[in-house]
Protein backbone atom coordinates (compact mmCIF):
# COMPACT_ATOMS: atom_id res chain seq x y z
CA UNK A 1 0.00 0.00 0.00
CA UNK A 2 1.44 3.34 -1.03
CA UNK A 3 1.16 6.55 0.96
CA UNK A 4 -1.69 7.78 -1.22
CA UNK A 5 -3.65 4.55 -0.79
CA UNK A 6 -3.06 4.65 2.93
CA UNK A 7 -4.41 8.19 3.11
CA UNK A 8 -7.55 7.33 1.16
CA UNK A 9 -7.99 4.21 3.26
CA UNK A 10 -7.79 6.26 6.47
CA UNK A 11 -10.29 8.73 5.06
CA UNK A 12 -12.67 5.90 4.21
CA UNK A 13 -12.26 4.55 7.74
CA UNK A 14 -13.19 7.93 9.13
CA UNK A 15 -16.35 8.12 7.00
CA UNK A 16 -17.39 4.61 7.97
CA UNK A 17 -16.72 5.38 11.64
CA UNK A 18 -18.82 8.50 11.42
CA UNK A 19 -21.61 6.42 9.91
CA UNK A 20 -21.29 3.83 12.63
CA UNK A 21 -21.40 6.44 15.37
CA UNK A 22 -24.51 7.94 13.78
CA UNK A 23 -26.19 4.56 13.49
CA UNK A 24 -25.36 3.63 17.07
CA UNK A 25 -26.70 6.89 18.35
CA UNK A 26 -29.82 6.63 16.21
CA UNK A 27 -30.49 3.14 17.56
CA UNK A 28 -30.35 4.24 21.15
CA UNK A 29 -32.37 7.33 20.31
CA UNK A 30 -35.11 5.25 18.71
CA UNK A 31 -35.15 2.52 21.31
CA UNK A 32 -38.31 2.44 23.40
CA UNK A 33 -36.63 2.62 26.83
CA UNK A 34 -36.13 5.89 28.70
CA UNK A 35 -32.54 6.31 29.93
CA UNK A 36 -33.49 8.80 32.63
CA UNK A 37 -36.14 6.55 34.11
CA UNK A 38 -33.74 3.60 33.93
CA UNK A 39 -31.09 5.63 35.69
CA UNK A 40 -33.36 6.35 38.61
CA UNK A 41 -34.69 2.82 38.86
CA UNK A 42 -31.12 1.52 38.79
CA UNK A 43 -30.35 3.77 41.75
CA UNK A 44 -33.45 2.49 43.53
CA UNK A 45 -35.40 5.74 43.33
CA UNK A 46 -39.02 5.99 42.20
CA UNK A 47 -38.90 9.33 40.37
CA UNK A 48 -41.83 11.72 39.97
CA UNK A 49 -42.79 12.96 36.52
CA UNK A 50 -41.38 16.44 37.33
CA UNK A 51 -38.07 15.01 38.48
CA UNK A 52 -37.77 13.02 35.24
CA UNK A 53 -38.54 16.09 33.13
CA UNK A 54 -36.05 18.20 35.10
CA UNK A 55 -33.32 15.60 34.69
CA UNK A 56 -34.09 15.20 31.00
CA UNK A 57 -33.62 18.95 30.56
CA UNK A 58 -30.48 18.97 32.62
CA UNK A 59 -28.92 16.04 30.71
CA UNK A 60 -30.00 17.46 27.36
CA UNK A 61 -32.35 14.63 26.37
CA UNK A 62 -34.96 17.18 25.30
CA UNK A 63 -32.67 18.84 22.75
CA UNK A 64 -33.16 18.23 19.02
CA UNK A 65 -31.70 14.98 17.69
CA UNK A 66 -28.70 16.47 15.89
CA UNK A 67 -27.74 18.68 18.81
CA UNK A 68 -27.69 15.60 21.02
CA UNK A 69 -25.78 13.59 18.44
CA UNK A 70 -23.00 16.11 17.90
CA UNK A 71 -22.64 16.76 21.61
CA UNK A 72 -22.29 13.05 22.21
CA UNK A 73 -19.83 12.67 19.31
CA UNK A 74 -17.75 15.60 20.58
CA UNK A 75 -17.57 14.04 24.01
CA UNK A 76 -16.56 10.69 22.54
CA UNK A 77 -13.75 12.30 20.59
CA UNK A 78 -12.49 13.80 23.82
CA UNK A 79 -12.54 10.32 25.30
CA UNK A 80 -15.67 10.83 27.37
CA UNK A 81 -18.18 8.13 26.58
CA UNK A 82 -20.50 9.04 29.41
CA UNK A 83 -21.26 7.17 32.57
CA UNK A 84 -22.80 3.74 32.88
CA UNK A 85 -25.75 4.07 35.18
CA UNK A 86 -26.22 0.38 35.85
CA UNK A 87 -22.65 0.02 37.11
CA UNK A 88 -22.17 3.65 38.15
CA UNK A 89 -18.73 4.01 36.59
CA UNK A 90 -17.40 5.86 33.54
CA UNK A 91 -17.88 3.79 30.37
CA UNK A 92 -14.20 4.14 29.44
CA UNK A 93 -13.05 2.63 32.74
CA UNK A 94 -15.38 -0.33 32.32
CA UNK A 95 -14.39 -0.98 28.72
CA UNK A 96 -10.68 -0.71 29.53
CA UNK A 97 -11.00 -3.23 32.32
CA UNK A 98 -12.81 -5.74 30.09
CA UNK A 99 -10.75 -5.28 26.93
CA UNK A 100 -7.74 -7.27 28.02
CA UNK A 101 -9.62 -10.42 29.11
CA UNK A 102 -11.46 -10.50 25.78
CA UNK A 103 -8.24 -9.96 23.82
CA UNK A 104 -6.62 -12.74 25.83
CA UNK A 105 -9.50 -15.05 24.99
CA UNK A 106 -9.38 -14.07 21.32
CA UNK A 107 -5.64 -14.64 21.03
CA UNK A 108 -5.70 -17.89 22.94
CA UNK A 109 -8.45 -19.32 20.75
CA UNK A 110 -6.59 -18.19 17.63
CA UNK A 111 -3.44 -19.95 18.77
CA UNK A 112 -5.39 -23.13 19.54
CA UNK A 113 -7.18 -22.88 16.22
CA UNK A 114 -3.96 -22.47 14.23
CA UNK A 115 -2.34 -25.35 16.08
CA UNK A 116 -5.14 -27.60 14.83
CA UNK A 117 -6.07 -26.08 11.48
CA UNK A 118 -2.63 -25.66 9.87
CA UNK A 119 -1.35 -29.23 10.34
CA UNK A 120 -4.72 -30.78 9.48
CA UNK A 121 -5.24 -28.57 6.45
CA UNK A 122 -1.77 -29.28 5.05
CA UNK A 123 -2.11 -32.99 5.79
CA UNK A 124 -5.47 -33.11 4.06
CA UNK A 125 -4.18 -31.26 0.99
CA UNK A 126 -1.04 -33.36 0.66
CA UNK A 127 -3.09 -36.55 0.83
CA UNK A 128 -5.74 -35.18 -1.52
CA UNK A 129 -8.61 -37.65 -2.06
CA UNK A 130 -7.00 -40.26 0.19
CA UNK A 131 -8.67 -41.66 3.34
CA UNK A 132 -7.00 -39.04 5.58
CA UNK A 133 -8.41 -36.26 3.40
CA UNK A 134 -11.91 -37.74 3.58
CA UNK A 135 -11.74 -38.05 7.37
CA UNK A 136 -10.50 -34.48 7.81
CA UNK A 137 -13.18 -33.18 5.47
CA UNK A 138 -15.95 -35.07 7.28
CA UNK A 139 -14.76 -33.85 10.69
CA UNK A 140 -14.49 -30.24 9.56
CA UNK A 141 -17.91 -30.48 7.99
CA UNK A 142 -19.47 -31.43 11.30
CA UNK A 143 -17.29 -28.87 13.04
CA UNK A 144 -18.71 -25.91 11.12
CA UNK A 145 -22.25 -27.09 11.83
CA UNK A 146 -21.76 -27.09 15.60
CA UNK A 147 -23.22 -24.01 17.31
CA UNK A 148 -20.49 -22.75 19.64
CA UNK A 149 -22.83 -22.13 22.55
CA UNK A 150 -23.81 -25.78 22.49
CA UNK A 151 -20.16 -26.86 22.34
CA UNK A 152 -19.52 -24.67 25.37
CA UNK A 153 -22.37 -26.18 27.32
CA UNK A 154 -21.30 -29.73 26.46
CA UNK A 155 -17.72 -28.97 27.53
CA UNK A 156 -18.97 -27.61 30.84
CA UNK A 157 -21.21 -30.62 31.29
CA UNK A 158 -18.32 -33.01 30.72
CA UNK A 159 -15.30 -31.31 32.25
CA UNK A 160 -16.87 -29.29 35.04
CA UNK A 161 -19.96 -31.20 36.09
CA UNK A 162 -19.03 -34.82 35.37
CA UNK A 163 -15.25 -34.85 35.82
CA UNK A 164 -15.03 -31.75 38.05
CA UNK A 165 -11.66 -30.93 36.47
CA UNK A 166 -12.21 -27.24 35.82
CA UNK A 167 -14.20 -24.45 37.42
CA UNK A 168 -17.66 -23.82 35.96
CA UNK A 169 -17.39 -20.06 36.39
CA UNK A 170 -14.16 -18.58 35.10
CA UNK A 171 -12.90 -15.36 36.56
CA UNK A 172 -10.63 -14.85 33.58
CA UNK A 173 -7.47 -14.74 35.63
CA UNK A 174 -5.68 -18.03 35.23
CA UNK A 175 -4.87 -20.32 32.37
CA UNK A 176 -7.48 -22.78 33.65
CA UNK A 177 -10.17 -20.12 33.37
CA UNK A 178 -9.17 -19.38 29.83
CA UNK A 179 -8.97 -22.97 28.63
CA UNK A 180 -12.60 -24.04 28.12
CA UNK A 181 -13.86 -20.75 26.66
CA UNK A 182 -11.04 -20.64 24.15
CA UNK A 183 -11.46 -24.31 23.23
CA UNK A 184 -15.14 -23.60 22.63
CA UNK A 185 -14.34 -20.74 20.31
CA UNK A 186 -11.59 -22.69 18.60
CA UNK A 187 -13.75 -25.70 17.65
CA UNK A 188 -15.91 -24.09 14.99
CA UNK A 189 -13.09 -21.82 13.84
CA UNK A 190 -10.59 -24.65 13.36
CA UNK A 191 -13.08 -26.48 11.18
CA UNK A 192 -13.48 -23.42 8.98
CA UNK A 193 -9.75 -22.72 8.81
CA UNK A 194 -8.75 -26.31 8.15
CA UNK A 195 -10.89 -26.11 5.01
CA UNK A 196 -9.28 -22.80 4.07
CA UNK A 197 -5.74 -24.06 4.58
CA UNK A 198 -6.57 -27.18 2.60
CA UNK A 199 -7.99 -25.19 -0.32
CA UNK A 200 -5.09 -22.73 -0.33
CA UNK A 201 -2.43 -25.44 -0.23
CA UNK A 202 -4.22 -27.48 -2.90
CA UNK A 203 -4.35 -24.47 -5.16
CA UNK A 204 -0.63 -23.80 -4.73
CA UNK A 205 0.23 -27.47 -5.21
CA UNK A 206 -1.39 -27.45 -8.63
CA UNK A 207 0.53 -24.40 -9.86
CA UNK A 208 3.19 -24.54 -12.51
CA UNK A 209 6.17 -23.79 -10.32
CA UNK A 210 5.46 -26.91 -8.28
CA UNK A 211 5.45 -29.04 -11.42
CA UNK A 212 8.70 -27.36 -12.42
CA UNK A 213 10.32 -27.93 -9.06
CA UNK A 214 9.26 -31.59 -9.08
CA UNK A 215 10.68 -32.01 -12.58
CA UNK A 216 13.99 -30.60 -11.40
CA UNK A 217 14.02 -33.17 -8.63
CA UNK A 218 13.55 -30.79 -5.70
CA UNK A 219 12.57 -32.90 -2.69
CA UNK A 220 8.82 -32.86 -2.03
CA UNK A 221 9.31 -31.71 1.56
CA UNK A 222 11.30 -28.73 0.42
CA UNK A 223 8.65 -27.76 -2.12
CA UNK A 224 5.90 -28.05 0.46
CA UNK A 225 7.47 -26.12 3.32
CA UNK A 226 9.79 -23.88 1.33
CA UNK A 227 7.43 -22.71 -1.42
CA UNK A 228 3.89 -23.96 -1.21
CA UNK A 229 3.23 -23.28 2.46
CA UNK A 230 4.53 -19.67 2.60
CA UNK A 231 2.57 -18.87 -0.54
CA UNK A 232 -0.67 -20.22 0.85
CA UNK A 233 -0.33 -18.11 4.00
CA UNK A 234 -1.56 -14.94 2.33
CA UNK A 235 -5.30 -15.70 2.16
CA UNK A 236 -5.02 -17.12 5.66
CA UNK A 237 -3.76 -13.82 7.05
CA UNK A 238 -6.62 -11.90 5.45
CA UNK A 239 -9.09 -14.25 7.06
CA UNK A 240 -7.34 -14.03 10.43
CA UNK A 241 -7.82 -10.29 10.37
CA UNK A 242 -11.52 -10.66 9.71
CA UNK A 243 -11.76 -13.32 12.40
CA UNK A 244 -10.27 -11.07 15.06
CA UNK A 245 -13.18 -8.75 14.47
CA UNK A 246 -15.89 -11.35 14.44
CA UNK A 247 -14.32 -12.95 17.50
CA UNK A 248 -14.42 -9.69 19.45
CA UNK A 249 -18.15 -9.68 18.86
CA UNK A 250 -18.65 -13.43 18.75
CA UNK A 251 -17.02 -14.04 22.10
CA UNK A 252 -20.07 -12.58 23.81
CA UNK A 253 -22.01 -15.84 23.60
CA UNK A 254 -19.12 -17.83 25.00
CA UNK A 255 -18.36 -15.20 27.62
CA UNK A 256 -21.94 -15.38 28.84
CA UNK A 257 -21.84 -19.18 29.06
CA UNK A 258 -18.67 -19.19 31.12
CA UNK A 259 -19.47 -15.96 33.00
CA UNK A 260 -16.16 -14.73 31.63
CA UNK A 261 -15.47 -11.09 32.53
CA UNK A 262 -14.98 -9.81 28.99
CA UNK A 263 -16.35 -7.11 26.72
CA UNK A 264 -19.10 -9.28 25.25
CA UNK A 265 -20.49 -10.24 28.63
CA UNK A 266 -20.43 -6.58 29.64
CA UNK A 267 -22.32 -5.62 26.48
CA UNK A 268 -25.01 -8.25 26.94
CA UNK A 269 -25.57 -7.10 30.51
CA UNK A 270 -25.58 -3.49 29.38
CA UNK A 271 -28.31 -4.23 26.86
CA UNK A 272 -30.48 -6.19 29.27
CA UNK A 273 -30.28 -3.32 31.76
CA UNK A 274 -30.82 -0.74 28.96
CA UNK A 275 -27.54 0.98 29.79
CA UNK A 276 -27.31 2.94 26.55
CA UNK A 277 -24.06 4.84 27.07
CA UNK A 278 -22.29 1.59 27.77
CA UNK A 279 -23.75 -0.07 24.66
CA UNK A 280 -22.80 2.90 22.48
CA UNK A 281 -19.28 2.90 23.84
CA UNK A 282 -18.94 -0.83 23.33
CA UNK A 283 -20.12 -0.76 19.70
CA UNK A 284 -17.81 2.14 18.85
CA UNK A 285 -14.80 0.59 20.54
CA UNK A 286 -15.23 -2.79 18.92
CA UNK A 287 -15.70 -1.27 15.46
CA UNK A 288 -12.58 0.85 15.84
CA UNK A 289 -10.54 -2.15 16.95
CA UNK A 290 -11.93 -4.20 14.09
CA UNK A 291 -11.03 -1.57 11.52
CA UNK A 292 -7.56 -0.99 12.91
CA UNK A 293 -6.83 -4.73 12.88
CA UNK A 294 -7.92 -5.00 9.26
CA UNK A 295 -5.81 -2.01 8.31
CA UNK A 296 -2.80 -3.61 9.98
CA UNK A 297 -3.47 -6.83 8.08
CA UNK A 298 -3.51 -4.95 4.77
CA UNK A 299 -0.33 -3.12 5.72
CA UNK A 300 1.35 -6.39 6.64
CA UNK A 301 1.05 -7.53 3.02
CA UNK A 302 3.83 -5.11 2.22
CA UNK A 303 6.20 -7.21 4.30
CA UNK A 304 4.80 -10.63 3.55
CA UNK A 305 4.19 -10.41 -0.17
CA UNK A 306 7.11 -9.11 -2.25
CA UNK A 307 4.75 -8.51 -5.20
CA UNK A 308 3.07 -5.76 -3.21
CA UNK A 309 6.38 -3.98 -2.71
CA UNK A 310 7.27 -4.20 -6.38
CA UNK A 311 3.94 -2.87 -7.55
CA UNK A 312 4.65 0.55 -6.12
Amino acid at each position, binding site marked *: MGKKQLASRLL*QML*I*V*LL*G*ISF*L*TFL*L*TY*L*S*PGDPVRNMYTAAGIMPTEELIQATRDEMGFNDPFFVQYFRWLGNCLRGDFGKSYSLNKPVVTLLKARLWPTLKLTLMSMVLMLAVAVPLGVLSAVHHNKPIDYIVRAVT*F*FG*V*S*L*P*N*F*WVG*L*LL*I*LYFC*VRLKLLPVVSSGGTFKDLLLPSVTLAVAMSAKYTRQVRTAVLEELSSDYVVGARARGVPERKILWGNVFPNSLLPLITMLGLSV*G*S*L*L*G*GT*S*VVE*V*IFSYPGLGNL*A*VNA*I*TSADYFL*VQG*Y*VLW*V*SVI*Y*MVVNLLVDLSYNYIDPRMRLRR
Partner: protein
Amino acid sequence: MEKKKNKFLSNRGFVIFSILALLIVLAAVLAPVLCGSHSPTAGSLADAIKPPCAEHPFGTDKMGRDIFARVIYGARTSLSSTFVLVFVIFAVGTVLGVVSGYFGGWVDAVIMRIADMMIAFPGLVLAIAVAGMLGASTRNAVIAISLVSWPKYARLARSLVMKIRHTDFVAAATVTGSRTMYMLTRYMFPNTITTLVITAATDIGSMMMELAALSFLGFGAQPPTPEWGSMLNEGRNFMQSAPWMMIFPGLAIFITVVVFNMLGDNLRDILDPRSE
Protein backbone atom coordinates in the same frame (compact mmCIF):
# COMPACT_ATOMS: atom_id res chain seq x y z
CA MET B 1 -36.37 -28.65 -18.65
CA GLU B 2 -36.06 -32.40 -19.09
CA LYS B 3 -32.28 -32.20 -18.92
CA LYS B 4 -32.28 -29.94 -15.87
CA LYS B 5 -34.46 -32.34 -13.93
CA ASN B 6 -31.96 -35.12 -14.49
CA LYS B 7 -29.12 -32.96 -13.26
CA PHE B 8 -30.78 -32.62 -9.89
CA LEU B 9 -32.08 -36.15 -9.58
CA SER B 10 -28.84 -37.80 -10.64
CA ASN B 11 -26.94 -36.15 -7.78
CA ARG B 12 -27.36 -38.70 -5.01
CA GLY B 13 -26.27 -36.35 -2.22
CA PHE B 14 -28.75 -33.73 -3.30
CA VAL B 15 -31.62 -36.23 -3.38
CA ILE B 16 -30.78 -37.67 0.05
CA PHE B 17 -30.42 -34.30 1.76
CA SER B 18 -33.48 -32.86 0.04
CA ILE B 19 -35.49 -35.72 1.49
CA LEU B 20 -33.96 -35.19 4.94
CA ALA B 21 -34.62 -31.45 4.80
CA LEU B 22 -38.17 -32.16 3.69
CA LEU B 23 -38.59 -34.53 6.64
CA ILE B 24 -37.48 -31.80 9.04
CA VAL B 25 -39.91 -29.34 7.50
CA LEU B 26 -42.66 -31.96 7.59
CA ALA B 27 -41.95 -32.65 11.26
CA ALA B 28 -42.43 -28.95 11.95
CA VAL B 29 -45.64 -28.79 9.93
CA LEU B 30 -47.05 -31.99 11.40
CA ALA B 31 -46.00 -31.14 14.95
CA PRO B 32 -49.50 -31.60 16.44
CA VAL B 33 -49.70 -35.10 14.95
CA LEU B 34 -46.21 -36.12 16.10
CA CYS B 35 -46.57 -34.84 19.62
CA GLY B 36 -49.97 -36.34 20.28
CA SER B 37 -51.37 -35.20 23.58
CA HIS B 38 -48.21 -33.37 24.71
CA SER B 39 -48.34 -29.60 24.52
CA PRO B 40 -45.16 -27.57 23.96
CA THR B 41 -46.25 -24.80 26.31
CA ALA B 42 -48.35 -26.47 29.02
CA GLY B 43 -47.08 -29.02 31.49
CA SER B 44 -47.91 -30.13 34.98
CA LEU B 45 -45.44 -29.41 37.75
CA ALA B 46 -45.89 -32.98 38.93
CA ASP B 47 -43.95 -34.02 35.83
CA ALA B 48 -41.14 -31.46 36.29
CA ILE B 49 -37.57 -32.47 35.42
CA LYS B 50 -38.15 -36.08 34.48
CA PRO B 51 -35.37 -37.90 32.65
CA PRO B 52 -36.15 -39.38 29.22
CA CYS B 53 -38.62 -42.26 29.49
CA ALA B 54 -41.26 -43.95 27.34
CA GLU B 55 -43.86 -41.25 28.07
CA HIS B 56 -41.40 -38.37 27.53
CA PRO B 57 -38.71 -39.55 25.09
CA PHE B 58 -36.56 -36.42 25.63
CA GLY B 59 -37.56 -35.89 29.27
CA THR B 60 -39.35 -32.85 30.70
CA ASP B 61 -38.22 -29.39 31.79
CA LYS B 62 -38.59 -27.47 35.03
CA MET B 63 -42.24 -26.68 34.26
CA GLY B 64 -43.07 -30.28 33.40
CA ARG B 65 -43.29 -29.58 29.69
CA ASP B 66 -42.41 -32.37 27.30
CA ILE B 67 -39.03 -31.59 25.71
CA PHE B 68 -39.77 -33.71 22.64
CA ALA B 69 -42.86 -31.62 21.92
CA ARG B 70 -40.89 -28.44 22.51
CA VAL B 71 -38.12 -29.53 20.16
CA ILE B 72 -40.60 -30.44 17.41
CA TYR B 73 -42.64 -27.26 17.85
CA GLY B 74 -39.35 -25.36 18.15
CA ALA B 75 -38.58 -26.42 14.58
CA ARG B 76 -41.50 -24.23 13.50
CA THR B 77 -40.01 -21.13 15.11
CA SER B 78 -36.44 -21.86 14.06
CA LEU B 79 -37.18 -22.91 10.48
CA SER B 80 -39.71 -20.20 9.69
CA SER B 81 -37.59 -17.40 11.13
CA THR B 82 -34.50 -18.71 9.33
CA PHE B 83 -36.29 -18.95 5.99
CA VAL B 84 -37.74 -15.46 6.38
CA LEU B 85 -34.29 -14.14 7.31
CA VAL B 86 -32.53 -15.76 4.36
CA PHE B 87 -35.25 -14.58 1.99
CA VAL B 88 -35.07 -10.99 3.30
CA ILE B 89 -31.30 -10.67 2.98
CA PHE B 90 -31.41 -12.39 -0.40
CA ALA B 91 -34.14 -10.05 -1.72
CA VAL B 92 -32.80 -6.83 -0.22
CA GLY B 93 -29.20 -7.62 -1.08
CA THR B 94 -29.97 -8.64 -4.66
CA VAL B 95 -32.17 -5.64 -5.44
CA LEU B 96 -29.73 -3.14 -3.95
CA GLY B 97 -26.76 -4.84 -5.58
CA VAL B 98 -28.36 -5.00 -9.04
CA VAL B 99 -29.47 -1.37 -8.82
CA SER B 100 -26.06 -0.32 -7.57
CA GLY B 101 -24.20 -2.14 -10.32
CA TYR B 102 -26.57 -1.09 -13.11
CA PHE B 103 -26.86 2.62 -12.41
CA GLY B 104 -23.39 3.23 -10.97
CA GLY B 105 -22.57 6.84 -10.06
CA TRP B 106 -23.86 8.28 -6.84
CA VAL B 107 -26.50 5.58 -6.38
CA ASP B 108 -23.72 3.02 -6.35
CA ALA B 109 -21.56 5.15 -4.06
CA VAL B 110 -24.29 5.63 -1.48
CA ILE B 111 -25.41 1.99 -1.41
CA MET B 112 -21.89 0.65 -1.27
CA ARG B 113 -20.75 3.03 1.50
CA ILE B 114 -23.72 1.91 3.59
CA ALA B 115 -22.75 -1.68 2.84
CA ASP B 116 -19.15 -0.91 3.92
CA MET B 117 -20.46 0.48 7.15
CA MET B 118 -22.46 -2.63 7.90
CA ILE B 119 -19.52 -4.86 7.04
CA ALA B 120 -17.21 -2.81 9.27
CA PHE B 121 -19.34 -3.88 12.20
CA PRO B 122 -18.34 -7.26 13.50
CA GLY B 123 -21.55 -9.15 12.65
CA LEU B 124 -22.96 -10.25 15.96
CA VAL B 125 -22.08 -6.98 17.73
CA LEU B 126 -24.52 -4.90 15.73
CA ALA B 127 -27.08 -7.71 15.74
CA ILE B 128 -26.94 -7.85 19.53
CA ALA B 129 -27.14 -4.08 19.80
CA VAL B 130 -30.08 -3.85 17.39
CA ALA B 131 -31.96 -6.76 18.91
CA GLY B 132 -31.33 -5.39 22.38
CA MET B 133 -32.39 -1.84 21.53
CA LEU B 134 -35.49 -2.76 19.55
CA GLY B 135 -36.57 -5.15 22.27
CA ALA B 136 -36.26 -8.90 22.32
CA SER B 137 -38.47 -10.80 19.90
CA THR B 138 -38.08 -13.20 16.99
CA ARG B 139 -39.00 -10.46 14.53
CA ASN B 140 -36.38 -8.06 15.87
CA ALA B 141 -33.73 -10.77 15.86
CA VAL B 142 -34.49 -11.33 12.17
CA ILE B 143 -34.26 -7.57 11.51
CA ALA B 144 -30.99 -7.35 13.41
CA ILE B 145 -29.27 -10.14 11.49
CA SER B 146 -30.71 -8.91 8.17
CA LEU B 147 -29.13 -5.51 8.77
CA VAL B 148 -25.65 -6.96 8.98
CA SER B 149 -26.03 -9.71 6.40
CA TRP B 150 -27.45 -8.09 3.26
CA PRO B 151 -24.19 -6.38 2.13
CA LYS B 152 -22.64 -9.71 1.22
CA TYR B 153 -25.45 -10.33 -1.28
CA ALA B 154 -25.43 -6.76 -2.52
CA ARG B 155 -21.71 -6.88 -3.24
CA LEU B 156 -22.04 -10.17 -5.03
CA ALA B 157 -25.00 -9.04 -7.15
CA ARG B 158 -23.24 -5.78 -7.95
CA SER B 159 -20.07 -7.47 -9.16
CA LEU B 160 -22.09 -9.88 -11.32
CA VAL B 161 -24.04 -7.02 -12.90
CA MET B 162 -20.88 -4.97 -13.47
CA LYS B 163 -19.42 -7.92 -15.36
CA ILE B 164 -22.16 -7.80 -18.03
CA ARG B 165 -23.01 -4.10 -17.78
CA HIS B 166 -20.75 -3.08 -20.63
CA THR B 167 -21.09 -6.08 -22.90
CA ASP B 168 -22.39 -5.78 -26.44
CA PHE B 169 -25.74 -7.47 -25.90
CA VAL B 170 -26.62 -5.05 -23.11
CA ALA B 171 -25.63 -2.10 -25.30
CA ALA B 172 -27.72 -3.56 -28.13
CA ALA B 173 -30.73 -3.95 -25.87
CA THR B 174 -30.39 -0.36 -24.69
CA VAL B 175 -29.98 0.96 -28.22
CA THR B 176 -33.10 -0.89 -29.40
CA GLY B 177 -35.03 1.01 -26.75
CA SER B 178 -35.51 -1.46 -23.89
CA ARG B 179 -36.84 0.31 -20.85
CA THR B 180 -34.82 0.35 -17.63
CA MET B 181 -37.22 -1.89 -15.75
CA TYR B 182 -37.10 -4.39 -18.59
CA MET B 183 -33.31 -4.29 -18.62
CA LEU B 184 -33.15 -4.94 -14.91
CA THR B 185 -35.65 -7.77 -14.77
CA ARG B 186 -34.87 -9.39 -18.11
CA TYR B 187 -31.07 -9.17 -18.26
CA MET B 188 -29.48 -8.04 -15.00
CA PHE B 189 -31.48 -9.99 -12.45
CA PRO B 190 -31.44 -13.41 -14.21
CA ASN B 191 -27.69 -13.07 -14.53
CA THR B 192 -27.18 -12.89 -10.78
CA ILE B 193 -29.81 -15.34 -9.66
CA THR B 194 -27.89 -18.63 -9.82
CA THR B 195 -24.91 -17.44 -7.82
CA LEU B 196 -27.10 -15.74 -5.27
CA VAL B 197 -29.38 -18.75 -4.83
CA ILE B 198 -26.31 -20.87 -4.20
CA THR B 199 -25.08 -18.37 -1.63
CA ALA B 200 -28.48 -18.25 0.05
CA ALA B 201 -28.74 -22.03 0.17
CA THR B 202 -25.31 -22.40 1.75
CA ASP B 203 -26.11 -19.64 4.25
CA ILE B 204 -29.23 -21.27 5.71
CA GLY B 205 -27.24 -23.26 8.26
CA SER B 206 -25.11 -20.40 9.54
CA MET B 207 -28.10 -18.02 9.66
CA MET B 208 -29.98 -20.57 11.74
CA MET B 209 -27.05 -20.71 14.16
CA GLU B 210 -26.89 -16.91 14.42
CA LEU B 211 -30.60 -16.69 15.17
CA ALA B 212 -30.25 -19.43 17.76
CA ALA B 213 -27.30 -17.57 19.29
CA LEU B 214 -29.37 -14.40 19.66
CA SER B 215 -32.22 -16.36 21.22
CA PHE B 216 -29.74 -18.07 23.49
CA LEU B 217 -28.62 -14.67 24.75
CA GLY B 218 -32.27 -13.79 25.34
CA PHE B 219 -32.61 -11.38 22.40
CA GLY B 220 -34.74 -13.62 20.19
CA ALA B 221 -37.85 -15.72 20.74
CA GLN B 222 -39.34 -15.14 24.16
CA PRO B 223 -40.59 -17.84 26.52
CA PRO B 224 -42.88 -19.72 26.54
CA THR B 225 -42.48 -19.94 22.73
CA PRO B 226 -40.46 -23.06 22.07
CA GLU B 227 -37.24 -22.16 20.24
CA TRP B 228 -34.04 -24.18 20.23
CA GLY B 229 -31.69 -21.37 21.23
CA SER B 230 -33.81 -20.19 24.14
CA MET B 231 -34.40 -23.80 25.22
CA LEU B 232 -30.64 -24.20 25.49
CA ASN B 233 -30.54 -21.11 27.64
CA GLU B 234 -33.18 -22.55 29.95
CA GLY B 235 -31.35 -25.86 30.05
CA ARG B 236 -28.10 -24.14 31.04
CA ASN B 237 -29.33 -23.55 34.60
CA PHE B 238 -30.28 -27.20 35.03
CA MET B 239 -27.12 -28.68 33.64
CA GLN B 240 -26.33 -30.69 36.73
CA SER B 241 -29.80 -32.03 37.46
CA ALA B 242 -31.25 -32.25 33.95
CA PRO B 243 -28.62 -32.41 31.20
CA TRP B 244 -31.27 -33.62 28.71
CA MET B 245 -32.74 -30.15 28.76
CA MET B 246 -29.75 -28.84 26.83
CA ILE B 247 -28.68 -31.95 24.94
CA PHE B 248 -31.76 -32.40 22.76
CA PRO B 249 -32.36 -28.81 21.58
CA GLY B 250 -28.64 -28.55 20.77
CA LEU B 251 -28.79 -31.81 18.86
CA ALA B 252 -31.80 -30.49 16.94
CA ILE B 253 -29.87 -27.37 15.88
CA PHE B 254 -26.81 -29.41 14.96
CA ILE B 255 -28.69 -31.97 12.85
CA THR B 256 -30.77 -29.34 11.06
CA VAL B 257 -27.70 -27.23 10.31
CA VAL B 258 -25.80 -30.27 9.00
CA VAL B 259 -28.68 -31.23 6.70
CA PHE B 260 -29.12 -27.74 5.29
CA ASN B 261 -25.37 -27.21 4.90
CA MET B 262 -25.10 -30.49 3.01
CA LEU B 263 -28.07 -29.56 0.86
CA GLY B 264 -26.49 -26.18 0.08
CA ASP B 265 -23.13 -27.75 -0.81
CA ASN B 266 -24.78 -30.26 -3.12
CA LEU B 267 -26.87 -27.58 -4.76
CA ARG B 268 -23.70 -25.59 -5.39
CA ASP B 269 -22.03 -28.60 -6.98
CA ILE B 270 -25.00 -29.00 -9.33
CA LEU B 271 -25.53 -25.37 -10.26
CA ASP B 272 -21.99 -24.05 -10.27
CA PRO B 273 -20.03 -25.33 -13.25
CA ARG B 274 -16.75 -24.13 -11.75
CA SER B 275 -16.84 -26.31 -8.63
CA GLU B 276 -15.29 -29.76 -8.64
